[in-house]
């Protein structure tokens, strides 16, 4: 059990939770402030930098300090200048696919390298390379390097204005910290945190988004070690500093873009191994788990890398955090993820350095320019399409379920063809500041938008369990029992099992719902899951994307679990029209599941090294689990079991459905109730109703029952 936050941080936390910092915010009329934008065709990087510089220069006018804080920098400008006009965006989209907002995002910048040397050193590097580009008349390089240089200078101006204001206000410690960073490399943990804050804050101002924090305990361990060795910090002091650093992620997060409030990609990774494969967890790993539990806020999102080498003590500490119901940590299993990444072509040392981008997509800090969420395949839609085909009727007439499965496999290949083709012309707008923090971009004089060491595309896979359950229902009802023909089944599904129109619909629905489902360690449905994910992996294997990378299929759904479900009528597994899919990799909603052990066993059976884009197995535990004296220990054993069985990623939630229902009725009482959504945690009452409702459906099946 961790000590509560100090009085100082409790006050700071209360201040932030009450959003009092919003009082400092203002809107800027960017059309007036930026009347003449750089030309998008010849000076894309300049276009990016002018927006960033304008924001930072605005911010430099109004430094703000929250009460008793030690790590400064708070957004005061509410709105960011748009990168492009609507007309420009439309024009760009005519000639190529622009993903999401069209800029570099979902990467894990290498903050550590810059924090170590300081911006003066990085600036010198840019200046030198710019001279070379000018000599070579490399227009693109000049555009990128000039923009990067100007961006760095704007950051330095902002930091200096904060330093001067702090000095004037008598905030000696902040002034001293800012006298060192970001100009020079950090020497202490406080300086390193302040430096990170400046970089991360500036990335958001650039319009970059969903950029992960990276391997927190690896980035900052050298500074903590130095402080401990010099006697500047003890364990408690270090934890307090970590807690304050974590608080800083929550000040401006309501201004960040995302599908829902909380979907902001501020994810960090703990634990795991070093480049030789040795366990790299350290004191900061523990302090981060503890500090997160003290803060009890939605940011930053905590991930923990585990393996068969992870100590049980660390798993217990992590489970103690699960107990609090924040949806942290999310686990990733090195024993599966690292071999999976090397199969995709990542160098072993890079694979060992993996982290998550925004939610759960595995990326390599500094060198990964992957687009890990470029598209999604809906497995239930593929089942639906096959059931509707004339070939399915033929297969049923021949009583050949293998033929049906072959059609399903072909359908996955067809969908892969279609997606790959739609991505053949792919464009992304640059982010020079993100690129400064990506390895080798200055040296290459090119923005991360134009490439990097890894330029792979990640493909989500939605609704694994509903698709498996549907395939199994088709096997039983259409092939084994011959209760219904494919064509008739389709009619009944389109009519949402309407018993008025179809006399057999009620029994069909009842039967479909009672069939064995994926998640109970049952051989038959699980074998279909193994096959489905192998087919999915095969359908992408060997393809190259337009940037020279590969495709990485995965078991994540992101928000498609609602979108894809809404595109379908009822499904053969007994899911009615309008009912959502489970998020990510989890049993279908509302199906009879015996317990968490069977869920882990079932979902670990497929070869997950081949679908390693990311996408956690999600388990809902009733929060009463932790009322038992050894509840934490037993849940930690479940994590060990997940590792042992070869799970790739796991999300354990502690929920209480009664509380969620009450929160829907009385939101004012539950402002701070945190739930896990699909790869991030958010405030339940701030979610749109369909997301709330899906979480309630999930919470109907909690363990123990």
């Amino acid at each position, binding site marked *: 059990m961790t000590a509560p936050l100090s009085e100082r941080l409790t006050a700071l936390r209360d201040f932030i939770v009450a959003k009092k910092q919003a009082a400092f915010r203002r809107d800027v009329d960017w059309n007036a402030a930026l009347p003449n934008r750089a030309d998008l065709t010849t000076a894309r990087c300049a276009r990016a930098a002018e927006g960033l510089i304008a924001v930072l220069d605005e911010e430099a006018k109004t430094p703000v300090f929250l009460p008793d804080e030690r790590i400064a920098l708070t957004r005061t400008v509410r709105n960011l200048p748009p990168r492009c006009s609507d007309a420009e965006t439309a024009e760009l989209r005519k000639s190529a696919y622009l993903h999401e907002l069209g800029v570099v995002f979902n990467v894990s910048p290498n903050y550590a390298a810059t924090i170590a040397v300081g911006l003066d050193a990085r600036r010198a590097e840019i200046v030198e390379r710019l001279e070379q580009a000018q000599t070579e008349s490399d227009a693109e390089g000049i555009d990128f390097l000039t923009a990067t240089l100007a961006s760095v200078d704007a950051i330095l101006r902002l930091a200096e204005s904060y330093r001067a204001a702090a000095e004037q206000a008598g905030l000696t410690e902040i002034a001293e910290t800012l006298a060192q960073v970001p100009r020079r490399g950090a020497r202490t943990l406080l300086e390193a945190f302040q430096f990170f804050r400046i970089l991360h804050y500036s990335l958001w101002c650039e319009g970059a988004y969903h950029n992960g924090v990276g391997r927190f305990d690896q980035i900052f361990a050298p500074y903590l070690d130095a402080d401990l060795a010099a006697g500047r910090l003890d364990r408690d002091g270090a934890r307090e500093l970590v807690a304050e650093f974590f608080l800083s992620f929550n000040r401006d997060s309501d201004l960040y873009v995302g599908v829902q409030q909380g979907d902001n990609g501020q994810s960090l990774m703990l634990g795991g191994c070093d480049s030789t494969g040795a366990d790299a967890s350290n004191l900061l790993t523990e302090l981060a788990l503890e500090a997160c539990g003290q803060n009890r806020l939605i940011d930053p999102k905590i991930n923990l890398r585990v393996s068969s080498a992870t100590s049980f003590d660390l798993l217990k500490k992590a489970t103690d955090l699960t107990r609090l119901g924040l949806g942290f940590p999310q686990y990733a299993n090195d024993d599966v993820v690292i071999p999976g990444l090397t199969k995709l072509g990542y160098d072993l040392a890079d694979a060992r350095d993996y982290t998550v981008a925004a939610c759960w997509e595995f990326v390599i800090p500094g060198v990964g320019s992957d687009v890990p969420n470029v598209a999604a395949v809906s497995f239930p839609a593929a089942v639906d399409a096959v059931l509707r085909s004339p070939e399915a009727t033929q297969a049923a007439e021949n009583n050949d379920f293998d033929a049906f499965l072959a059609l399903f496999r072909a359908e996955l290949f067809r969908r892969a063809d279609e997606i790959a083709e739609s991505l053949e012309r792919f464009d992304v707008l640059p982010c020079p500041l993100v690129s400064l923090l990506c390895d080798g971009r200055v040296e290459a004089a090119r923005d991360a938008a134009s490439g990097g060491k890894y330029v792979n595309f990640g493909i989500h896979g939605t609704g694994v369990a509903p698709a498996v359950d549907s395939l199994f229902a088709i096997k039983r009802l259409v092939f084994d029992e011959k209760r219904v023909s494919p064509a008739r089944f389709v009619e009944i599904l389109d009519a949402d099992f309407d018993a008025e129109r179809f006399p057999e619909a009620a029994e069909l*629905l009842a039967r479909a*719902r009672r069939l064995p489902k994926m998640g109970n360690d049952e051989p038959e449905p699980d074998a279909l899951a193994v096959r489905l994910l192998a087919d999915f992996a095969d359908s992408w294997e060997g393809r190259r994307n337009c940037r020279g990378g590969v495709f990485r299929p995965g078991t994540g759904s992101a928000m498609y679990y609602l979108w894809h479900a809404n595109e379908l009528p009822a499904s053969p597994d007994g899911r009615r029209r309008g009912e959502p899919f489970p998020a990510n990799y989890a049993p279908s909603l509302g199906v009879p599941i015996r317990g968490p052990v069977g869920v882990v066993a079932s979902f670990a059976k497929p070869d997950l090294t081949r679908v390693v884009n990311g996408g956690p197995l999600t388990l809902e535990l009733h929060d009463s689990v932790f009322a038992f004296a050894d509840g934490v220990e*037993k849940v930690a*054993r479940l994590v060990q079991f997940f590792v*042992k069985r070869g799970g790739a990623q796991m999300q354990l939630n502690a929920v209480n459905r009664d509380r969620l229902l009450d929160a829907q009725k009385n939101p004012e009482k539950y402002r701070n109730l945190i739930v896990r959504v699909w790869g991030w945690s958010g405030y339940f009452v701030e979610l749109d109703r369909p997301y709330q409702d899906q979480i309630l459906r999930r919470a109907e099946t909690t363990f123990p029952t």
Partner: protein
Amino acid sequence: MSDFSRKSAANSAEIAASDRPPRPVRGLIFEVREFALHDGPGVRTSVFFKGCPLRCRWCHNPESQAPTPELLLNRSRCSGCGACEKICDAALSRSRRDVCVACGRCVDLCPQGARNLCGWETDVPTLVERLLRQRDLFELSGGGVTLTGGEPLFQPEFAVELARSLRDAGIHVALETCGFASPEVFDALTSCVDLVYFDVKILDPERSRRWTGVDSAPILANLRRLCASGRPFVVRTPLIPGVNDSPAERAAVERLVDGVPSALGVEFLPYNVAAGAKYALLDRRFDPDLP
């Protein structure tokens, strides 16, 4: 009540008397619950035996009592679509227990999933195969399987066979029991498990009959046998307000195992008077009639 006692006694006598050759034994269970948190050390799976010789007035699991399969009907999920009534006149009757043979046909017809069959027959190899699928979890957590119910001693042949098979496979087996059985049956089962959770409800024979339907004497006799056997056990007592929760009663329970080295402890479990929701599934009224 008395006929259940007779039934149990007859059952026990039959077991004790016979010197059976090995043959497939079948048992009736109503749940295999994974990740059972309060049924012993480590991560455990609990097997719930259907049928119990006791009728505790406060019982929260009425579906565990009858030694036959039963239909559970969740009327709050019923949409009144009538699918079940097409094949069974008694499908929605509130007194269906008198006529329902738990054939289960209506279960497969209910699109709302309002119907469930509680209890299914299985044999030991089938059940053991299922339980052993998770042996690696038992091993890494120091867990195992717990036989509970209902009352495992009420199906002694099956329970003994199951416990033996599991232990032969190296699985830690715990037994949770009310202790009501013949000494022979009690010894037969307790001698092939690793840990016993022994429920002690009411010591006084008369009050025991009044509240649980059976005399406490055979239970306490079995507890004494357990104390003498040296097998590790834990005494568990649900604290029923006004029935057995007085300090004197609690002290008396504790005295039962005072100085017994193999007694690992006495656990007093709080009781939630408000819970009785499962009675409605059987169209029975929850009426503990507590003082």
